[in-house]
Every structure is written in C-alpha cells, then in structure tokens.
C-alpha cells in the first residue's frame, strides 16, 4: 500500500479549482484543435496527443475519486449504523417548515454519532433526514432547523433535480454529435478519441453544475422558510472547519453560498 502514497498525494494536490480548470481545458482542447487535428503536421499531432493524454488523466482520476470515495463512505455509514442505530428526535417545527414549503412531512429527525457523517444529510428515497450528534451541542436550535430546512429543500426539489441529472447525462451525447457533425463537414469519417474524452470531461462539468445548482436551490428554500441568518451562521461555522473553502464536485464554496444569502438579510 505504501507504493500508492504518490497516488494519494496526487489526489490531495488535485484541489477542486485545479480539477475544474483542467477539465475546462480538456473540453476546449477537444473542441478546437481536435476537430482540425489531421490538418496539423505530424510532430504537432504527437505533441498534442501527449499533452492531451496527460490532461485527460485528471477527469478520469477525479471520477474514480468521487465514485470510490462516495461508495466507501456509504459502506462505512451502513456498517456503523447496523450496530449503532440512529436515534429519533422529534422537532415540532419541522412539520411547520415543511408545510410552508408545501410538503407533507411529519417524520422524526434521526441523530447519529456516526463519525463518517460530518453534516446533515437526507436519503431522497426514504426521505429520512439525519444530523450528527455533535451538531446538537455545536449549533443553536434555530441553526439546526435551518439545516433541516435545507434538507427539506432537497426533498422538495427532488423532481427537478432528477430531471436535470437525466438531461446532464445526455449532454455529452449532444456534445459528441455536435462535434461529429463538424468533423463530417471537415471531411473526417470518424470521431477522434480526443473528442470522446472531451465529451466525458464536459459531462463531469455539467454534473457538477447540476449538483451545485441543487444546493443553491435547497439554500433558497431554507432561506424562504427559516430565514437567511441562521443558515449563514451554520455556513460560517463550517467555513471555520474546512481547510480550503473552494467547493467540491457536489457542493459550492461556502463563501459563495454566504454571499448569496447575505443579499437577503
């Protein structure tokens, strides 16, 4: 396993900002030089191929990191929850908040001491909202309710989110056919591999956008029902805990979420 330390270091080096920039450059490189690649001199084509292959490792590595990371996290949570069942806690305000959002939600909130659960989360299928036990002491009741409001926002917008996810999955198909059309005009009879990799990076970017949009929407729902101040307070607390506030594949940066909410104070 020691041989894989360089891989872990590489993963740590790939902060979200770097990953996003590389993915955008992969998409741009796939669109412009790739479609007219066969008009280039041979040396330039070699140079391009090497450069593109190196950059293309990033979206692939990023996907592996995201998928395996999420899977390991889910397995860990499930294994821990088998022995230490989350406890039910009933907040009467939750029903009121849900009603304001137009939801019929009258379920208890689950509290867990699972070390793998870092923040409030919702299971969109069972609609169970779970919060970590430490939050009960770290946050004021109003702030916990704001976080629950955010999760209820996810439940409310589940339909829109699913539709956007489906559309985002079709995005690379549109991308690849669009470029295939251009290559056809240019006289090529096949789609270069660079365009295929570019379309994958494009899908990753679009998916990330959908995830972020979903978070902003849930923030907005919480703001409308609970108010902006408690949610900002929660984000400020989280900002204090993270090393670099630059967002992730699934969540936008906290400073951006705070800035959006501050305009409603």
């Amino acid at each position, binding site marked *: 396993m020691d041989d894989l330390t360089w891989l872990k270091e590489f993963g740590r080096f790939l902060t979200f900002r770097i990953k996003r920039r590389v993915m955008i450059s992969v998409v741009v490189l796939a669109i412009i030089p790739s479609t007219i690649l066969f008009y280039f001199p041979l040396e330039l084509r070699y140079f391009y191929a090497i450069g593109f292959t190196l950059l293309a490792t990033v979206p692939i590595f990023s996907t592996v990191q995201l998928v395996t990371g999420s899977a390991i996290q889910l397995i860990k949570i499930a294994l821990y929850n088998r022995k230490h069942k989350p406890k039910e806690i009933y907040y009467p305000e939750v029903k009121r908040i849900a009603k304001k959002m137009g939801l019929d939600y009258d379920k208890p909130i689950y509290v867990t001491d699972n070390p793998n659960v870092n923040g409030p989360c919702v299971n969109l299928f069972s609609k169970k909202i779970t919060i970590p036990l430490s939050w009960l002491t770290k946050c004021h009741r109003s702030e916990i309710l704001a976080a629950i409001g955010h999760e209820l926002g996810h439940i409310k917008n589940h339909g829109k989110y699913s539709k956007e996810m489906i559309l985002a999955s079709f995005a690379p198909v549109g991308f690849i056919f669009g470029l295939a059309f251009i290559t056809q005009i240019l006289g090529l009879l096949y789609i270069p591999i660079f365009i295929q990799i570019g379309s994958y990076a494009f899908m990753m970017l679009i998916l990330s956008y959908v995830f972020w949009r979903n978070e902003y929407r849930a923030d907005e729902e919480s703001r409308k029902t609970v108010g902006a101040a*408690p949610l900002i*307070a929660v984000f*400020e*607390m989280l*900002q*204090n805990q993270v090393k670099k506030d630059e967002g992730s594949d699934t969540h936008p940066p906290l400073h951006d979420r705070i800035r959006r909410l501050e305009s409603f104070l």
Partner: protein
Amino acid sequence: MKIVYDGTAQLVMHPVRFKILKHINESHKKQFVEEIAKAIDEHPRLVSHHLNVLQDIGLIECTYETTKAKGSKRRRVAVRFCTATPKLAEVFNDVAKAAEVLVEAK
C-alpha cells in the same frame, strides 16, 4: 471547566459569536446592535441572530430602549442594547485556562 460540559463552549466557538462576545466583554458598556455590527464588520441582522443565541444561553443580557430616530425630531425607535452577564467573564476565564492547558500540553 464546566463550560465544556454544559455545551456553552461549543456554541461560543462559532467565529462570529466569539468576536461579538470579545467585543462586548472588552467594551464594558451597553452596546447596541449597529455598534457591534460595525465593530466586527458583519451585517446587523446576522449579529442580531447571534445575539439571540447568546441571550438564550445566558451570556448576554438585552434590553430595549427607545431613542430618537435618525432624521426625525418626533419619531422614536426601539433599540436593542446588550451587556455582558457574569457568566461571560466565567466563560472567558475558562477559555483562557483551556488555552493554557493546551499550550502546556504542546
């Protein structure tokens, strides 16, 4: 260090709340929300939320007084004034002790 056990410490450790408490503790006089917000460079409504939390756990006391509204001779508005309670001094003592323990441990 009882504040660690009664949950006050965890609530106080919020960066903005800590700034508010530090400001109130150092000022030794009644402070109103706008003043605190200006001093710590935060939005008054956000400060107001944190003051509610701090009042809830008994670290500050808030009173409402009426003062003349800006730009009007007749109109009066209610302003929220905040002062530190004895519990706040205890909290700061405990935090200082905890910091000393940490420094010694290092």
